[in-house]
């Protein structure tokens, strides 16, 4: 036998209570009594029903309602023991007047909690791949939902592989099933996007999609998750955590893949653009060739005209320089018979030299019989043009 101290027992009780999964996350309904507010602003009260009572404490209460003695309420919190007094109490974190559905309350509570943790942050939302190759689908293998998803994707974009990760989607085991199904896809390397889907149903039917474990499994997914749960009007926690929320399973399938008809149109328009562009190139180079040809012929024409002009100039020049023109004006060309040297200075000849004389229409021979330097006595104004 072992003897325990009081504090030992209380601590043990506390550990037991706080390890219990029901007691750490529990909803309790009852009537408020002994309500009292401490100086620090904490609320102390007792919840009671026909037969029993439960002490409650609500630290730093955030209340949308006014709490009064006698009010019928629903509370949420965890049950533990206050070691100082050994009192068992409910540590309340949420109070709502009865009459509001408990599922609704749980939904709001979890939503607020996860939102505060940042699970819904817009910056965290990943964009969907444009051309996925493998799409994971978490849904029931037996319902119409998977069939619908497969037929929509098969019609829109059959280039993918669908990987069905089957699970129950309602009732006992649905939460664990969904978490495991998401995990199984997450363990695969090459899943590009995950569709989490379930057909329409009541709030209770869709309840697994409002579970915290499911929310965290979605958050943990490597691949972006598209939620398609229930109808357009149904919002689940899964929708808030998912990267993309689709209003229905069919819409989720449509969001997951591009559309075949759109792709065909896209390719067609690209082909058309190709044709237009290559034609533009051909036209441009054709025009350039034309321009160059024209420029070349203009240049050639100019060059010919210039050459012709030059030629004509030279002809005229030549004509004016021709000795024949000079001879026809009465001058004569005198050459040494022996050497052919043109005689243009008096020093070139001596008496007795044989000379050849050419005039405009013939030639004759002669001999120098005398010479004299200077032109005194000859005509004044003798042409001074030197040849």
């Amino acid at each position: 036998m072992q003897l325990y101290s009081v504090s030992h027992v209380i601590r043990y009780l506390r550990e037991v209570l706080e390890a219990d999964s029901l007691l750490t996350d529990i909803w309790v309904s009852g009537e408020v009594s002994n309500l009292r507010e401490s100086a620090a602003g904490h609320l102390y009260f007792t919840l009671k029903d026909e037969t029993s009572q439960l002490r409650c404490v609500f630290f730093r209460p955030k209340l949308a309602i006014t709490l009064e003695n006698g009010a019928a309420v629903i509370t949420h919190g965890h049950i533990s023991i206050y070691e100082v007094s050994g009192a068992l109490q409910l540590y309340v974190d949420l109070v709502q007047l009865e009459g509001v559905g408990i599922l609704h309350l749980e939904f709001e509570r979890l939503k607020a909690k996860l939102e505060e943790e940042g699970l819904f942050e817009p910056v965290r939302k990943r964009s969907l791949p444009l051309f996925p190759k493998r799409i994971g689908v978490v849904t029931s293998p037996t319902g119409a939902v998977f069939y619908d998803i497969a037929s929509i994707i098969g019609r829109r974009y059959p280039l993918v592989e669908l990987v069905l990760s089957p699970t129950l989607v309602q009732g006992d085991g649905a939460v664990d099933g969904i978490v495991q199904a998401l995990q199984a896809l997450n363990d695969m390397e090459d899943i590009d996007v995950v569709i989490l889907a379930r057909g329409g149903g009541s709030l209770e039917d869709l309840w697994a999609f409002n579970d915290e474990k499911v929310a965290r499994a979605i958050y943990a997914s490597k691949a972006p998750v598209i939620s398609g749960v229930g109808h357009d009007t149904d919002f689940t926690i899964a929708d808030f955590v998912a990267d993309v929320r689709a209003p229905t399973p069919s819409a989720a399938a449509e969001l997951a893949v591009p559309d075949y008809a759109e792709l065909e149109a896209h390719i067609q328009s690209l082909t058309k653009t190709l044709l237009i562009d290559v034609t533009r190139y051909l036209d441009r180079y054709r025009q350039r060739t034309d321009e160059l040809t024209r420029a070349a012929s203009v240049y050639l024409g100019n060059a010919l005209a210039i050459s012709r002009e030059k030629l004509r100039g030279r002809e005229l020049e030549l004509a004016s320089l021709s000795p024949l023109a000079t001879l026809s004006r009465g001058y004569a060309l005198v050459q040494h018979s022996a050497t052919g040297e043109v005689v243009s200075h008096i020093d070139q000849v001596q008496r007795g030299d044989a000379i050849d004389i050419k005039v405009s229409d013939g030639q004759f021979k002669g001999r120098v019989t005398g010479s004299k330097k200077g032109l005194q006595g000859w005509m004044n104004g003798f042409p001074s043009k030197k040849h």
Partner: protein
Amino acid sequence: MDERLSFEEALKRLEKIVHALQGGGLTLEQAIALFEDGMGLAKTCNERLNAAELKITQLQADFEPEPEHKDE
């Protein structure tokens, strides 16, 4: 054209070629070569689309699926 080119790769290349052609500054030979490549890629894209058939695989799950849910 590469036989194993995926639809996505072919489409990406096609888009790149269209972009290059629109950019200008190519020689005529380059433009025509790109055009021919582009037409080949467009053909590949269409072939891939037409030949595709949806593949479905199912992972094992350790539960006995219930006969029918109230899914729609």
